[in-house]
């Protein structure tokens, strides 16, 4: 790792001025949700940071996470982060294929033993190794082999973090998350379907800048982005408090941009940064576009009831079972009445 250039050197070689560098540090602080007072520290850290090697593994996934990441406002400022990262293996993005690609992965692993980052998107099928293979290697084998010498693992997207769609009921492939298999390495989960590109970049930047992984919540998600619910940061929250709700997708409430709670919004139970970071270069996020939050960054969000069922809806079970309970009540009542009559008769006789 010592022979690798520092990020400061890379920027200098690209002819980036000090002002450009300051701008870069300011946007990095913004990206990491750090207070602007941290900018000087970030500047110092970035100048001396060295280029980490990154191996990206794609398992049972739809490539949506990669699509999201490559569509982050990448060129120049954040793009530099990717220039500063050595993406040594990514079978969708790399030019090499087959044996050459696998050779690149092995070379990166050997060269950076103990220091590289493994990024994973997609879940791992445990039902049958043949469900998903790359170059004839099962997902499980490739994950375990690659992770062995890694500094840390970043699970990109809900599939890698929690099992996601492949792991949804009835889970035909026996899909599991990275965290289910890898126990001896630090794991950062960046869930979402897909995750916010800025959040993915931020986790990499944090590692690049400070050489350490961010603080995480109980699901392994970086607290800087997953520390608050969508509901708590939603600009429509005042309408929730005032009791102003959209009842359908085309009523006056919907047109006025009122709260989408009654249309099934999962904002109150969903931890993510959509409400502040937003999507498509800060254009908007689903609620701003009039659609309730699906809760895509939460474990098992596919199996948590209907997307359009309000959060407070209960699952009451079948009417038949309620009728059965009623019938049982009648029977118990009859028995109680008979017992009561006997008791009455007994007392009457005694009297």
């Amino acid at each position, binding site marked *: 790792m010592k022979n690798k250039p520092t990020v400061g050197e890379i920027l200098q070689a690209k002819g980036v*001025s000090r002002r450009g560098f300051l701008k870069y540090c300011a946007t990095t602080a913004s990206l990491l949700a750090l207070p*602007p007072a941290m900018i000087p520290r970030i500047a110092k850290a970035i100048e001396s940071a060295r280029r980490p090697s990154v191996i990206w593994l794609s398992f049972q996934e739809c490539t949506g996470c990669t699509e999201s990441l490559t569509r982050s406002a990448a060129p120049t400022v954040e793009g530099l982060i990717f220039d500063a990262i050595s993406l040594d293996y990514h079978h969708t993005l790399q030019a090499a294929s087959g044996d050459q690609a696998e050779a690149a992965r092995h070379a990166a692993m050997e060269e950076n033993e103990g220091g590289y980052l493994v990024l994973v998107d997609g879940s791992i099928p445990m039902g049958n190794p043949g469900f998903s293979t790359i170059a004839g290697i099962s997902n499980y084998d490739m994950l375990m082999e690659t992770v062995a010498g890694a500094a840390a693992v970043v699970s990109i997207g809900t599939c890698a973090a929690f099992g996601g769609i492949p792991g949804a009921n009835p889970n035909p492939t026996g899909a599991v998350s990275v965290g289910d298999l890898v126990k001896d390495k630090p794991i950062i989960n960046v869930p979402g379907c897909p995750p916010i590109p800025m959040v993915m970049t931020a986790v990499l930047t944090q590692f690049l800048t400070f050489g350490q992984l961010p603080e995480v919540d109980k699901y392994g998600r970086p607290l800087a982005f997953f520390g608050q619910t969508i509901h708590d940061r939603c*600009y*429509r929250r005042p309408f929730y408090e005032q009791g102003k709700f959209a009842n359908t997708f085309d009523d006056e409430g919907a047109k006025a941009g009122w709260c989408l709670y009654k249309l099934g919004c999962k904002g109150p139970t969903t931890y993510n940064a959509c409400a*502040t970071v937003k999507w498509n270069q800060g254009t908007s996020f689903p609620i701003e576009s009039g659609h309730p939050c699906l809760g895509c960054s939460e474990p098992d969000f596919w199996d948590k009831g209907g997307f359009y069922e309000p959060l407070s809806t209960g699952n009451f079970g079948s009417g038949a079972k309620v009728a059965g309970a009623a019938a049982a009540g009648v029977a118990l009542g009859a028995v109680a009445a008979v017992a009561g009559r006997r008791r009455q008769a007994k007392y009457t006789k005694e009297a």
Partner: protein
Amino acid sequence: MTSIDNIGVQVQAVHGNVRPILNEVLHALDKLIDNNETTIIDLAGLPFGPGELDVLEETLGKGELSAQLDALGSSRIQETTYPGVWWIEHRNAHDEVVGRYLEITRIPEILSSQDADICAGRVSLGEQFE
């Protein structure tokens, strides 16, 4: 041209963030006046509703001084109608906004010539005489 504009959506304005931010600016100005202390407010982490940022920008208005910086994409450094309150907007090469800040200071740091650049410039100017 697009029929999407014809949909009768009248989004009810929510401007809950504007007043607290202006209040923060007020306190930051006090700190600047009393202790010569600079404050930077990062506008990226705030849950703005549609159009709310425009309301904030309009409220602060445009002052006497405006500068454009070209480094890793353009940046606009604009003093607002309230001297000492600067609106800073960083863009990337694709002209997409990558950072928005309110800086309460006498002159934003990024406008000053930087030591490293001055030294590099000194070297390159010197080379022309050698």
